[in-house]
């Protein structure tokens, strides 16, 4: 498998009026193509910061973030798709126009891309809602639209910043299955930031556990589930609670 993303000795400090905070220090890890990696850690340890670095919204203080072997910069942003906690759909755009938002920004409103967006909507059960407005959709559907909007520009790497935390529990279980299925069938690489251990265990191939600030890698857990299991089915697998407890023990020692 090829290395898609690599963090090499990344350090990041935040400057504020009162003091200087070291958010990340000596952070190194890699993510391989078509892998689903979750990042968990004590709250406020800088998980979102890692995603911001990959999306080149901020620059590392030292060290480097490599995407396909190249340092990330604004130009590489089309290779990365970012999904936030809230769906951030624009109420005044129809579902289809929301999906095409990234295309219109990247001047890609041309036929192959538009057809791709259409087929994504069709494949994932939103075709009949193309001309609906976001306010007419359920929370789960909105999150699916947000994911398809992220996929429309055909990014190599998806950054998921707690995208399931804003929906109710039942919807969350359903959306997790949906999102996992869509990411697997589109053969995308994904990095999920979460504070929910069961979410990390049910979705990922590997889980990175961070130390408290300044964040470093505390340990990495590879999860060995049967490939055919959906996230929901994983929850009833005997290995699930074993992994859950191992990760919980690691995190507990950090708090």
């Amino acid at each position, binding site marked *: 498998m090829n290395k898609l993303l690599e963090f090499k000795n990344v350090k990041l400090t935040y400057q504020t009026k009162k003091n200087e905070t070291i958010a990340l220090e000596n952070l190194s890890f890699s993510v391989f193509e078509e892998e689903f990696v979750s990042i968990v850690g004590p709250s406020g340890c800088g998980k979102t910061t890692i995603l911001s670095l990959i999306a080149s*919204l901020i620059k590392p203080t030292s060290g480097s973030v490599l995407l396909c072997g190249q340092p990330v910069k*604004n130009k590489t*942003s*089309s290779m*990365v798709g*970012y999904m936030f906690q809230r769906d*951030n759909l624009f109420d*005044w755009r129809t579902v289809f126009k929301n999906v095409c938002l*990234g295309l219109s*920004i990247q001047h890609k409103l041309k036929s192959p891309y538009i057809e791709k967006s259409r087929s994504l909507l069709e494949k994932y059960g939103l075709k009949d809602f193309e001309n609906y407005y976001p306010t007419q959709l359920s929370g789960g559907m909105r999150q699916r639209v947000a994911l398809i909007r992220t996929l429309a520009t055909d990014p190599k790497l998806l950054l998921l910043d707690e995208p399931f935390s804003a929906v109710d529990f039942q919807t969350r279980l359903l959306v997790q299955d949906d999102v996992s299925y869509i990411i697997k069938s589109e053969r995308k690489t994904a990095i999920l930031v979460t504070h929910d251990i069961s979410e990390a265990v049910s979705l990922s191939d590997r889980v990175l556990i961070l130390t408290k600030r300044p964040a470093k890698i505390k340990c990495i857990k590879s999860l060995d589930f049967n490939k055919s299991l959906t996230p929901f089915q994983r929850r009833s697998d005997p290995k699930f609670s074993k992994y859950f407890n191992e990760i919980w023990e690691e995190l507990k020692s950090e708090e």
Partner: protein
Amino acid sequence: MKNKKFFSAEHKKYLRKTRLNRLLISLGRWSVLLFIIGLWELSAQLALIDPYITSSPSRVAKTIIAWAKDGSLWLHSWTTLYETLIAFAISIGLGSLLAILLYLFTPVRKIFEPYLVVLNSLPKIALGPLLIVWVGAGTKAIVLMGILICIIITTMSMLQSFVAIPQEKILLLKTLGANRFQVLFKLILPHAIPDFISVLKINVGMAWVGTIMGEYLVSQAGLGYLINYGGLVFNLDTVMSGIVVLCILASLMYFSVATLEHYIHKKRNL
């Protein structure tokens, strides 16, 4: 309404009730107007009030009809409407543009913020004498007064609306590779349209205030001139009739904006 026949009796009852409610409310509204006019007229007829000071609906109607016949109604209405519309259009356009520029250039915004606040709290009528000296006693001074009153509030309200946009939405556009102009056109401006409409509504009132005040200061024609003149010569029929015409024009303008709002909301499915 295709499947009307499938509505349950319960639902039909509900629909009847809401229709009745709406009818009662509009009936109530018209009754209030008729009651006030009726009471006013009756009191004047029975000499409970002195129509010389309070005028009366019939005298107002007579005055307006007389104005319509000699053409002065159109002259004065048009003069004031024209000044108001120009002041309204310029302050909305220029004020919004100013807000966009201030939004795009944060340091400039920070520099000008205190000045805006001070200008906003200054009673613009105080600048009247200056305007007259600088641009002359005429239409220009009146329109300028209207603009002064509207533009600051437009800029401040629009700026506030821009700044209040959720940061995460801007971040989303940035992760999609948007530059700041794309952020402006794809997010900031469309997001601000409902606020823009409220600014329009506020400014309908403000623009009339500005032009009428301007006409009180300097003018040879216009409703403000008529009202002011009527007051000076103690002809309260003229004053009241001027106010009535003003009321009608201002509500027409307000309803045009409300119609625009309705149309936009429908288009954006709000």
